[in-house]
């Protein structure tokens, strides 16, 4: 067997965290801690780049597969990547170093503990995206709750306790049903190995209930209407780096889960429940867009826009068309970059003025021009302007939706307009207009690290907006095979 590259991706951040934990001292030399964390995550990013380069794009089978006996005769530790999961791993390893760079502006106390939490979080997230065993997947999926609970609860805003509890209990409640389903799958099929389950298939009579159990977990995590209410709270209270992780990566676990498990394992049930997902997605798109329009808190507005964007994602996945699923994956990636950037943008002004209310800003374009330009770029990407990454995914999803269900696609298209409305209105109220608040004049423009982070996010946003080809090449075969498998299963029933 070759070098266990995926396991090292998972383990490296944990090793970094252990190192930070054991080198703690009284005065807490925080700068070193930060460099250690940064170094670890950058190495991890480079490894994942290497992973992408050496990834064979012509096959849909899982690569870099590692398998070890874990619980004898029951569960094997099995990881591997295909064209879908590798991009999420890249997203994770790309966002995490940026989070770490951003902390020196936002996290004031117990920086070392914060970095440990973020590193452990990264491990679990990578684990989620490359797990090829249901139990291993569940383990990583749930374990991520612990560091995130602490990140919100210790370093969050005034209502952090309420938000942390809400986040934890909502997600846990959704997930325990998935655990029941996973154990049931074991008794039905005799294995929890995902690849084996793809081949075996699951008897159609069980699929509906199992699908619903998985759905309850993923719907909370996505989050879909009406179980989305934890998200705005969690986002508003979490520190900037926490919001970034939450929006950019945590929400993607559910989308990934839908593609990998709901579609892959339960094709018949997916077909049955498509109307349900369509309805909930469309409600999410339209309803939360209207809510976003009404928000006075910038972070809350972006949080609701996340719900709307994830509505597009679920819509795209369940079109069960090549374009729809590809669009969903790209939408998740672009949302990962753009929402991360938007939360960072809010973080930038919040650090200076300690207010997230829209009405306390206005007319800052002349005071901090660099910031305004970058903020503009991400605003446009969020509303899906052609030429930015946000456009590609949204367009493909709508295309897939038009093929499958005309009415749903038309309604969802209104969401695009609403999206443009709330994003542009937000931008207008914050950046343009008359300068009323005199305090704003003391604002300084982006410092070096902020500039670096936002530029790092801006480059791929623009690049993949113009040239998404490398991403398509990676996911194409995997997605088309998934759909073939799906159609085969439907036909044979």
């Amino acid at each position, binding site marked *: 067997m070759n070098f266990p590259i995926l396991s090292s991706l998972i383990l490296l951040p944990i090793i970094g965290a252990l190192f930070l934990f054991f080198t703690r001292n009284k005065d807490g030399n925080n700068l070193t801690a930060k460099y250690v964390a940064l170094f670890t995550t950058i190495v991890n990013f480079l490894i994942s780049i290497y992973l992408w380069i050496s990834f064979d794009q012509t096959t849909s089978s899982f690569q870099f597969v590692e398998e070890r006996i874990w619980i004898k005769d029951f569960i094997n530790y099995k990881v591997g990547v295909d064209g879908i999961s590798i991009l999420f791993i890249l997203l994770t390893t790309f966002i995490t170093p940026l989070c770490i760079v951003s902390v020196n502006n936002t996290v004031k106390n117990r920086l070392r*503990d914060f970095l440990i939490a973020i590193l452990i979080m990264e491990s679990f997230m990578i684990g989620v995206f490359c797990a090829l065993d249901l139990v291993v997947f569940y*383990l990583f999926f*749930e*374990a991520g709750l612990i560091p995130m609970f602490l990140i919100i609860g210790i370093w969050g805003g005034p209502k952090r306790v309420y938000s942390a509890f809400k986040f934890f209990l909502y997600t846990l409640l959704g997930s325990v*049903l998935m655990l029941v389903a996973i154990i049931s799958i*074991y008794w039905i099929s005799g294995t929890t190995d995902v690849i084996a389950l793809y081949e075996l298939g699951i008897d159609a009579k069980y699929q509906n209930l199992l699908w619903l159990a998985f759905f309850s977990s993923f719907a909370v995590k996505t989050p879909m209407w009406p179980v989305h209410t934890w998200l705005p709270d969690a986002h508003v209270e979490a520190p900037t780096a926490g919001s970034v992780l939450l929006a950019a990566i945590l929400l993607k676990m559910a989308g990934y889960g839908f593609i990998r498990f709901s579609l892959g394992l339960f094709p018949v049930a997916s077909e049955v429940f498509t109307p349900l997902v369509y309805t909930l997605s469309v409600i999410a798109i339209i309803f939360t867009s209207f809510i976003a329009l009404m928000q006075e808190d910038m972070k809350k507005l972006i949080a609701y826009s996340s719900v709307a964007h994830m509505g597009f994602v679920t819509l795209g996945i369940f079109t069960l068309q090549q374009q729809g699923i590809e669009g969903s994956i790209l939408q998740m990636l672009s949302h990962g970059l753009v929402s991360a950037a938007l939360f960072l943008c809010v973080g930038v002004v919040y650090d200076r003025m300690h207010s997230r209310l829209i009405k306390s800003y206005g007319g800052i374009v002349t005071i901090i021009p660099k910031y305004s330009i970058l903020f503009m770029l991400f605003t446009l990407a969020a509303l899906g302007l052609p030429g930015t990454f946000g456009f590609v995914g949204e367009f493909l999803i709508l295309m897939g939706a038009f093929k499958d269900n005309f009415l749903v696609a038309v309604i969802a298209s209104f969401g695009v307009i609403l999206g443009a409305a709330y994003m542009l209105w937000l931008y207008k109220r914050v950046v343009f207009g008359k300068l009323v608040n005199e305090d704003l004049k003391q604002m300084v423009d982006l410092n070096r690290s902020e500039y670096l982070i936002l530029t790092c996010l801006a480059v791929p946003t623009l690049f993949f907006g113009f040239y998404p080809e490398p991403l398509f090449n990676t996911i194409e075969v995997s997605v088309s095979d998934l759909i073939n498998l799906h159609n085969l299963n439907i036909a044979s029933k």
Partner: protein
Amino acid sequence: MNNLNLILPEIFISLSVMFLLILGVFKKNSSQLTFNLSLVTILVAIILTVNETFSVNRIMLFNDSVVIDRMATLMKIITLIGGFLVLGISSNYLKTFKIFKIEYPILILSSVLGMMIMISSNDLMVFYMGLELQSLALYVLATFNRDQSKSSEAGLKYFVLSALSSGLLLYGCSLIYGFSGSTNFDVIANQLTSNEYALTFGIVFILVGLAFKISAVPFHMWAPDVYEGSPTTVTLFFTMVPKIAALTVFIRFLYVPFLNLIDQWQMIIVFLSIASMIFGAIAAIGQTNIKRLVAYSSIGHIGYTLAGLATGSNDGIQSSIIYISIYVVMNLALFSCLLMLKRNDQYYEDIDDLSGLSKNHPLLSLSLLIILFSLAGIPPLAGFFAKFYVFKAVIEQSMYFLAIVGLLSTVIAAFYYLRIIKIIYFDKEKEKYDSDHGLWLKFSLTFSTILILLYFIFPSQLIEVVSRISII
């Protein structure tokens, strides 16, 4: 009588108890000596148990009234290790309260002896004798801090209610004897032909008595008061060791003589299990004293253990045993933390005393964090696997309702564990606690926390040991 070596550990402990009693009477100021000798006794008993019975598959002794099998061996070892650690941890606590007396280690030894007899019993009489021996020792232990009214109250409550349950249990025994003509489990199993309804009455009475001992809802009322009032080290003993013995008897009683009557008792166990899980989770939410909270949480955990028992399969029994083993380790860790909350010779037991602990005691709070998440059953900690095995066994028998109720109650239970974590990590800090703790305490905390944290790396070992147990 050529197999006497198999009960050598029991014989050795009883001889030591007598010897230590005489020693304590005739030698002045011998509490430290008795204490150390008791530790040695348990250690020797562990070695004897491993040495004599570990490879034994199943042997009957004394007219089939005592059984030595794999389950008995494993449970005895866990009991002895539990007793050993509790005894070791106790010394500093007892010295602080000036109740470091010779009786304490001797009482612990006697109750451990009683539990070992319970674990090995294959006969209603032997089982009852073991039960009473351990209970009598426990009554005294509960009142051990006799200058405090709470401790006396705890002992008295425990005595009265436990005596009541023993009465019920004995009544059940006599009913079963009357209808089957024997007290031996195997003989009863063979006699099960006609009078099944009458026997069911006996089973119900005995189940009530046993449910009392392990504090399953609705027979749990004594637990919170007794747990709160007893000295903390005794509470630790209560939450760990008697449960193991009672669970073993539970398993043996249900699965050896009455397996064929599973239709009669399965619903009772399912009810006890569901009621305990839900009640334990909900009642713990409002508690302010940590020991009371642990009492309710232990009620909840007993519910999960019973869920494994309710399945009527070997997998279920094994999952229950795994659950109780992991639970014992988690409890040991939790109480070690609790015993570290000491300032100026005073122990603190309220949840609010934990407020902001993470600022001054980062390592202690990290251990607590791990322990509490594990108790809540969050992966990848040991507590998750304990629940996982139980629900695996439950779902195997298609008892989906039990599984779903159980898992939903873990969500409720997660709330109060999270509340403690919130107080430790999110709230304002208080005064510092003492940071010099005895070696025993440090050892047991480190050992158990590491076990909880790293269990997921080698989960197979425990399963392998337990999977050799087969009762059915």
